[in-house]
């Protein structure tokens, strides 16, 4: 199924992942890999298991009552179910949720929260991290004079960039974005896409998106999920060509289904 030349070594390896919510199985044994330095686009209609899959990567699925995962996921060669320091695992993976979440803290504290939680208290170091992350998220110029105002007072688009800054604040190797553009305007979406293009030089990005064209614009490889299964994972130009590996992929990306 995968026919491209490798972009880099495998960073995340998912083997036979199954997710249950109570008795109901929502992911039916999927396998795929994410390679260092690539943007892997994940497309698929609602209920296809994209968000559940992301929650398995950093093990936040365990906060959902009744949810269980089976199979193996390794991040940098380590089995996520066996890591001693689950908090370290979560810091290795930056996670951006669909809806912007400005925590009810100041803008500064929003970004400094994760480093502080990890034990950093040196003010100068925190200042550096806050500035770097807000710059990376293309928000610094808009907020640098009011870092002490509440993150919740920012506009939706600004809050989403604040969320990205927070996801970058713990220096992750992998950045996962879950339909980040769902609640923000097209102009902000394009600004964030530009941010991602810059970030791809330094990190691996997993871009789950409901906009197929976004995957087409940004992703090196694209994975199409449907009803808890991986239909196809291939180079983006192949997935979006007239002859992808699976006819369902063509139907989805050309808007016939989903």
């Amino acid at each position, binding site marked *: 199924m995968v026919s491209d030349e490798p972009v880099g070594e495998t960073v995340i390896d998912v083997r036979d992942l199954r997710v249950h919510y109570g008795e109901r199985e929502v992911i039916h044994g999927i396998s795929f890999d994410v390679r260092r330095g690539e943007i892997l686009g994940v497309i698929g209609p609602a209920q296809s298991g994209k968000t559940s899959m992301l929650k398995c990567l950093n093990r936040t699925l365990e906060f959902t*009552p009744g949810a269980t995962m089976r199979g193996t996921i390794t991040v940098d060669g380590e089995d996520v179910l066996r890591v001693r320091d689950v908090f370290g695992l*979560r810091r290795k993976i930056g996670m951006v949720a669909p809806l912007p979440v400005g925590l*009810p803290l100041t803008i500064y504290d929003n970004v400094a929260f994760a480093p502080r939680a990890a034990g950093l208290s040196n003010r100068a170091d925190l200042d550096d991290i806050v500035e770097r992350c807000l710059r990376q998220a293309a928000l610094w110029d808009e907020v640098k004079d009011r870092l002490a105002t509440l993150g919740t007072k920012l506009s939706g688009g600004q809050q989403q960039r604040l969320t990205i800054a927070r996801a970058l604040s713990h220096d992750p190797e992998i950045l996962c974005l879950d339909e980040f553009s769902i609640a923000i305007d097209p102009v902000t979406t394009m600004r964030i896409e530009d941010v991602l293009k810059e970030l791809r030089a330094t990190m691996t990005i997993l871009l789950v998106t409901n906009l197929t064209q976004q995957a087409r614009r940004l992703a090196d490889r694209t994975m199409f999920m449907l009803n808890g299964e991986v239909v196809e994972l291939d180079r983006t130009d192949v997935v979006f060509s007239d002859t992808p590996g699976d006819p369902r992929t063509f139907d989805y990306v050309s808007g016939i289904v989903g």
Partner: protein
Amino acid sequence: MFTATPHILRKQRTERLAHAMFAGMALSIVVPLVCIIAFLVVKAWPSLSLAFLIEPPRNMQTEGGIWPALIGTIYLVVVALFAAAPVGVLAAVYLNEYATDNWFTRLVNLAVINLAGVPSIVHALFGLGAFVLAAGLGQSVIAASLTLAVMTLPVVIASTREALVAVPRSFREACWNVGATRWQTIRAVVLPNAISGILTGVILQVSRTAGETAPILFTGAVMYKAVEKGDLLPYRLTESCMALATHLYNLATQINGAPESLQFATATVLLGAVLLVNSTAIALRVYLRSRKKW
């Protein structure tokens, strides 16, 4: 185009009827409260005065004021508050933020629900057995307050959980995603935003026990204590005390020769005190909510 068909007219009639019925029921909640207050104040009028509040009773409690009972009730409620708040709030944080669905959580929830259903007279007997006798506290402020605290725990837990649930889950998820522990999440985001609701809820719930008679009757409230006018520190915690609810009960059933207005004045003060605390708590909540951060 917009003419009303018979079907539309019928719908509009039904709508008006439904509106009137629901409004009527809502109004009927206000009526008893207003009636009770008016009735009490009218009956109590001859005895109500500032002196009535701060003077001790005289002449076998057939004259004078209610200061020993008023300060006693304040003692009981405040001590009960300090006993119930930590246990109730911490238990609620556990149940809402930590607990997964297992036998222990189910056991605790079951205990909370059943505790809420226990009649107050049974709480009184429990307090008598556990605090007065077994723990050796004797009939005292502390024993009566602990009994009230046990009684009020389920509602303290319920109101605290309500305040915690009001903090959006997305805030917690954002914290978990960046590698924060549950406790770091609770301390940084959940508690600061729930604390106003928790505090006002706890004050409201515990202050309601001011009117409880049975639980304190066996555990710490007595018929008469000699207290100086306006004395703010008349009781030690290990001493028994007077209380408004039991004083009212005694005036109504035990004491002969007191004017009727004395009972009603006591009831008015009891009701007034609870309403005062309630409205203060509600005002505090409205004020804190107006400063909400999202």
